[in-house]
């Protein structure tokens, strides 16, 4: 059963994150972490944007914070977001990866080692190749991988980069990703009732 969904996106990401936010329902076992590339200066407005139409709590990740169920954690500007093997969130000011901090690869890679086959990685629209290697690591560690269909993506460089180096479990349109998230959440709610 999926316990963690990690989502990475860059150019065009605000729009689709707002759409995906509506898909989540409370499950009592699912956690979500998001990296979106933003300018390093200034506050990160994504938590309040997504939070406006999301059933889960959406917040900026704080260092040393244990991950809670039914919560979406968004990486702050200018720090990498990592998930530790003991499921605590940490931030890092290590050098940018793929010219990006936060880097999707750093989040995906740490999620793969922390959650193994209980993680789903979703890579969305974007204009650079960050996230592809991390998604591959998620697959290697037994997790489920989803890439946005490049023809559906506002910027197709990021999904295409992943498809060049791996074969994900699913290549989906925005609508299909929303349905995928909904089915994971409902699967979880059935499980939670048992």
């Amino acid at each position, binding site marked *: 059963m999926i316990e963690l969904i990690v989502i990475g996106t860059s150019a065009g990401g605000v729009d689709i994150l707002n759409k995906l936010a509506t898909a989540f329902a409370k499950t009592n076992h699912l956690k979500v972490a998001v990296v979106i590339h933003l300018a390093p200066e200034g506050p990160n407005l994504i938590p309040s944007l997504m939070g406006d139409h999301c059933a889960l709590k959406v917040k900026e990740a*704080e*260092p040393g914070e244990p991950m809670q169920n039914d919560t979406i954690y968004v990486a702050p500007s200018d720090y990498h977001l990592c998930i*530790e093997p003991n499921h605590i969130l*940490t931030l890092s*000011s290590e050098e940018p990866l793929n010219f990006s901090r936060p880097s999707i690869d750093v989040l995906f890679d740490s999620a*793969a080692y922390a959650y*193994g086959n209980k993680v789903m990685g979703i890579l969305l629209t974007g204009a650079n190749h960050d996230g592809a290697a991390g998604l591959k690591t998620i697959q290697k*560690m037994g997790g489920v991988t989803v890439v946005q269909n490049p023809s559906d993506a506002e910027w197709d460089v990021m999904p295409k980069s992943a498809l060049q180096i791996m074969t994900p479990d699913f290549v989906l349109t925005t609508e299909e990703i929303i349905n995928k998230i909904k089915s994971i959440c409902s699967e979880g709610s059935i499980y939670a009732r048992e």
Partner: protein
Amino acid sequence: MEADTVNLEIELLIQAIYTKFQYDFKHYSRSSLRRRLEQALIKFNLNSISEVQDKILHERDFFPKLIAYLTVNTTEMFRDPTYFLSLKENVFPILQTFPSIKIWVAGCSTGEEVVTLSILLKEAGIKKYLIYATDINPMNLETAKRGIYPVEVIPRASKNYRLAGGQGSLSDYYATAYDSVRFDESLYKNVVFSDHSLSTDSVFSETHFISCRNVLIYFDRPLQERVFKLFRESLIRGTFLGLGNKETLQFSEMKHHFEVIDQENRIFRKKD
């Protein structure tokens, strides 16, 4: 390759390093350590973290080379300019009331913040001060002492110097040679660099201002607590602590001993 196996190899390596060399990484971010170990595997042409362990146990000169990879060394001059603006406004005026000032840059890495503070103290007309710059990584300290940095860091540093309220031009403080810059020796005459571990060492001096930024984000909460206790012990009453802009005292017992001076820039003042 199983995630659990790699995580186990890391735990075993941490134990081996602690037992053999007394460097304590038990409370460090595992994901950060793993990324750094992966870089070390490439650099030393090894296949697994267990092979790293084999080398540190059996090859005397390997560990000093490895340690350079294990700590996070990323830092930059005038990072977060508003922090330094706030120091000038809220901290320096009070520091100047002391006959001489002791500053501790804890986890100074390769010294960029030391240069930054030296420049700002000079521009504030503060002369009687001593900076203790400490780090766990001896190679970082060597880099910090040399004061030589790649010329590529300058455009961003110059921009942030101006944003931090710098009064002249950053180029007043360095000389360029080929693709490097060397900062003026005068910036280092009141600086003492030394090897110090926040995990295992104790307080070495009374201080008036401690700047420790983007160090605690790699530590778990028990180690953060240890460090805050050290800082409380070192700071004299009414003096200051500056943290990185995602770091906080709010989860620490020590929060009761500090008041918030500037929440956004993470500057605190010891009350008692």
